[in-house]
């Protein structure tokens, strides 16, 4: 690896100093020289990656040593390349200031070449090792991060399968959960762009979208006779409806009872969505009758996604509607009352969502105006 660090740069206006240092190190490195700060900096672009060390004088015309150090700092080179200060003036003031500027060691004049050579080589080796370690570390982090990502992907895939299984009794196509997740994601992204006040970072959007998978997990608690009441028997009675409504509370209570789960970052979103995805902007929803933005935004978004999917898909109790109809119904308040900001985003993205997630699956026969 030492092959890649082959050069040293000597920046000093006194030729004698440059010659002495060159003489001492020319067997180990290719030596570059400069007689003032600017000329020294000029050599950096092509040589920076191969520099093992820089020797710097303080007192020089045009740009002095401290000026050079500042520039090196700006280019973030000080971490990678050791800079040695050469000076006759080894006064405390100068030395301290040099260290503050990032110099690694001070070489006093007149030179004792044996000592200097030893010190410099030691430090170059240390820097070399450190740079290599950093490189290895970064490579490892990439590998780990890739593995971590794949692991997460697998886990979420499993969760999605399980949730689909949980809704198996009532989910006719088996893709409702996936679609709600995707629609939720699209809506959240639109919301974060148009309304930054909702504070939806990329990671939050990711979490909420994943959390939406569990929105109807409470349906496990609902008896078959209600969950899958045949259309021929008519709509749910008010008692049956009351029981149906409990899928919200039953679901979130089930989530809350899992002690380990409560500690994860995603828990609050799963709970909020599960419990409040049937709330209404006007307060006439259930189970808590929350109004406006009392309803967690995560739940609000999943609510719209859920309704949109229900409208566009075929269900036991209804045919599939066209997306124009669905948009009209949602805007008209026929399927619930929603946050105007959210409706605005929905209107902007409804068509895109339809094209992306629905168009292929349906042919024109499925639709009824």
């Amino acid at each position: 690896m030492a092959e890649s660090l082959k050069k040293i740069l000597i920046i000093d206006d006194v030729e004698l100093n440059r010659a002495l240092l060159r003489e001492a190190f020319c067997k180990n490195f290719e030596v570059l020289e400069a007689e003032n700060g600017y000329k020294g900096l000029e050599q950096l672009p092509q040589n920076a990656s191969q520099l093992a060390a820089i020797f710097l004088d303080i007192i020089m015309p045009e740009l002095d040593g401290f000026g050079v150090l500042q520039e090196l700092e700006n280019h973030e080179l000080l971490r990678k390349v050791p800079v040695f200060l050469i000076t006759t003036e080894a006064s405390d003031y100068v030395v301290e200031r040099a260290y503050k500027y990032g110099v690694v060691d001070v070489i006093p004049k007149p030179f004792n070449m044996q000592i200097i050579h030893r010190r410099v080589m030691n430090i170059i080796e240390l820097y070399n090792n450190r740079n290599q370690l950093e490189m290895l570390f970064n490579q490892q982090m990439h590998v780990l991060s890739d593995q971590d990502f794949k692991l997460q992907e697998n886990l979420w895939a499993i969760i999605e399968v399980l949730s689909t299984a949980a809704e198996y009794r009532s989910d006719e196509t088996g893709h409702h959960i996936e679609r709600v997740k995707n629609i939720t994601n699209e809506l959240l992204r639109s919301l974060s762009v148009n309304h930054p006040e909702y504070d939806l970072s990329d990671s939050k959007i990711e979490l909420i979208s994943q959390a939406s998978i569990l929105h109807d997990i409470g349906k496990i608690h609902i008896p078959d006779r209600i969950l899958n009441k045949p259309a021929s028997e008519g709509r749910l009675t008010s008692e049956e409806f009351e029981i149906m409504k409990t899928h919200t509370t039953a679901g979130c209570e089930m989530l809350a009872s899992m002690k380990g789960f409560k500690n994860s970052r995603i828990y609050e979103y799963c709970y909020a969505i599960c419990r409040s995805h049937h709330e209404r902007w006007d307060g006439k929803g259930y189970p808590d009758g929350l109004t406006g933005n009392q309803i967690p935004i995560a739940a609000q978004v999943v609510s719209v996604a859920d309704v949109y999917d229900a409208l566009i898909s075929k269900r036991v109790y209804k045919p599939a509607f066209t997306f124009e109809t669905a948009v009209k119904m949602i805007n008209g308040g026929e399927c619930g009352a929603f946050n105007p900001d959210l409706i605005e985003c929905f209107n902007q993205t409804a068509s895109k969502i339809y094209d992306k997630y629905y168009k292929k699956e349906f042919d024109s026969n499925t639709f009824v105006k």
Partner: protein
Amino acid sequence: MTFDEATDKIGVDKEETLRRFSGNTELMERFIKKFPEDTTFNELQEALKAKNWTDIENTAHTLKGVSGNLGFHELYTLSAALVTAIREKNYTEADKLSPQTVDTAAEKS
């Protein structure tokens, strides 16, 4: 006078200086011979004439470095003292030292 005789007269510790040149005798000789050509000395004289203390300080500082590395001990000590005097604003001392420095430098050449 041969090179060796000259260096002996000036009082250069050749062995010590040679070590500084990493053993390269040729290089050492070249630079010692170059010393008379070094403009720093002239610059110092100019600065003294103009009584420009900053310039005097800088040139004396450079001279100190050069003489130090070449092993010209006497000159080194003098120029070092000159620099210190100026920094301490001890101008009288400086006044005294500067001619001495100039003389010694001239001698070495």
